[in-house]
């Protein structure tokens, strides 16, 4: 701060606290709803302070029958599906983009620029604009209702390849020269020098991609018809539909809470890497 103005300081903190309250309010309301029983959650006005039913709600949501009157998979299974999908997408993206960025930066080969441009094009095409034909491809390959179908079509992305390309370009040339003098081949150089050097970038990218994978909605919605393959994020829609008949808001909001805890935990616990990953992949 440049100068000391007590009034301005007070206003600064006031605005920030109000901002935090506005941002946190929906999450707080969700948490409160998950701590009351069904009867309390059906009377207006709804409570603003937590009750004591959190454990009961959690137990019923995770291992119970879930919402009455709906045929959904148990919540623990949906959490497992979401976790598998998020991990496959994030680790798969990192693996294939590390390899292709390595090839594009460190090798001279015919059609190198053709490969580069083909990857670059995918930067421009979000899955939403080509859903129908992509769905047909996945259906023809027999990958509906499988973890492969959930993750592989989302794995190819140019952003990760671009980020690793930037990282590799900043590695000094002397590294490769000395490695070659010592007799290291390309893959040895990749494992022993490039990978350790880009460790923090990989971790930062992992945080972003994990959240990207966990929060997928449209794609899982289309290719899973079997209830045992549903993910937690897409189950929210079924629950909102069921809420119009039997409003068990305590269970619905406990499920919503469970769906957002893993990505929030990742963001908060790895905040520094997260901010780094965000600013590096998008700029």
């Amino acid at each position, binding site marked *: 701060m440049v100068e000391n103005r007590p009034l301005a300081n007070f206003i600064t903190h006031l605005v920030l606290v109000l901002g935090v309250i506005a941002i946190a309010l929906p999450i707080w309301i969700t948490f409160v709803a998950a701590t009351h029983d069904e009867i309390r959650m059906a009377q207006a006005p709804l409570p603003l302070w937590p009750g004591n039913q959190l454990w009961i709600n959690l137990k019923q949501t995770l291992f119970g029958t879930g919402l009455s009157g709906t045929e959904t998979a148990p919540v623990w299974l949906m959490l497992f599906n979401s976790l598998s999908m998020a991990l496959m997408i994030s680790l798969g993206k990192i693996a294939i983009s590390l390899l292709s960025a390595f090839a594009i930066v460190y090798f001279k080969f015919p059609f190198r620029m053709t490969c580069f441009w083909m990857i670059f094009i995918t930067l421009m095409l*979000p899955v939403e604009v080509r859903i129908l034909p992509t769905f047909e491809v996945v259906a023809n390959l027999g990958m509906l209702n499988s973890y492969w179908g959930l993750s592989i079509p989302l794995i190819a992305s140019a952003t990760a390849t671009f980020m690793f390309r930037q990282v590799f370009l900043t590695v000094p040339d002397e590294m490769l020269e000395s490695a070659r003098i010592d007799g290291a081949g390309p893959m040895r150089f990749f494992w022993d020098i490039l990978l350790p050097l880009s460790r923090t970038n990989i971790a930062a990218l992992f945080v972003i991609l994990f959240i990207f994978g966990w929060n997928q909605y449209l794609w899982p919605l289309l290719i899973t018809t079997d209830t045992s393959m549903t993910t937690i994020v897409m189950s929210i829609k079924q629950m909102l539909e069921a809420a119009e008949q039997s409003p068990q808001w305590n269970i*619905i909001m406990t499920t919503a809470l469970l769906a957002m805890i893993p990505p929030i935990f990742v963001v908060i616990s790895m905040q520094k890497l997260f901010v780094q990953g965000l600013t590096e992949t998008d700029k």
Partner: protein
Amino acid sequence: MLKRVHFPSSPLPYLLVAPQLAITLIFFIWPASQAMYQSFLIEDAFGLGSEFVWFENFQVLWEDSHYHAAFWRTAVFSVLVAALSMGFALILAGFAQRVVRGAMFYRTLLIWPYAIAPVLAGALWVFMFNPTLGILTYFLKHLGITWNHYLNGGQAMTLVILAAAWKQVAYNFLFYLAAMQSIPNSVIEAAAIDGAGPGRRFWTIIFPLISPTTFFLLVINMVYAFFETFGIIHAVTQGGPGSSTTILVYKVFNDGFVGLDLGGSAAQSVILMVLVIAMTVVQFRYVERKVEY
């Protein structure tokens, strides 16, 4: 682009790019070209055969008043989402960068919504605005406003805009804060010595200096509002009541998967693709060069 020191040509690089190229070809380039091809076809009523009709699907869209309405609705929706979330984030970041100690504390409390899926953001807001039980509905009733987004199209639109903007504030805040923190302190101090107060310093120095970030965020937020808000609309309003919240990406889905109008839906996909590519080109060309410092 290529390293000055590099490995000689061998089969190895082909093996290395093969996985990414295979996935790109099978799941990106082939479907995108299929979408383009399908946009020139009209299927007959029984789905038995199709006829190549050149631009008839596009012509139908061009004359379709529903499509026009969806187009303008999307424009209004994305501009409002971008303006609301960027404005709110700018205010918060502007105050947060004044705080010497505790800026990181506020940042930790403000970035949560980034981690929340759009469809969950929709669920949280629809719960607060539930016509019979919602907490905000309850307060609005005391102000004399009856809230029912199942019946009132304007209220449904307000609800999805609020949910979409809320989720995006965290992202914009992070970029604005990072941009403001990279401005050298000496510039701000010089202005303070010349007698400029905090408000004046913000509008005449900080705001112009972060204009590249503003333009960058504008494009990102438009793309977000165009595509990623699908989850919110699908879960909260299903494009209704009537078609008051049917934005373009929801219409592609609805016409293709529900209405089974494959040619029309593919033509809409192609238009969306052109829009995304245009936005990406604007981001790469215009934004990076023509921003005034």
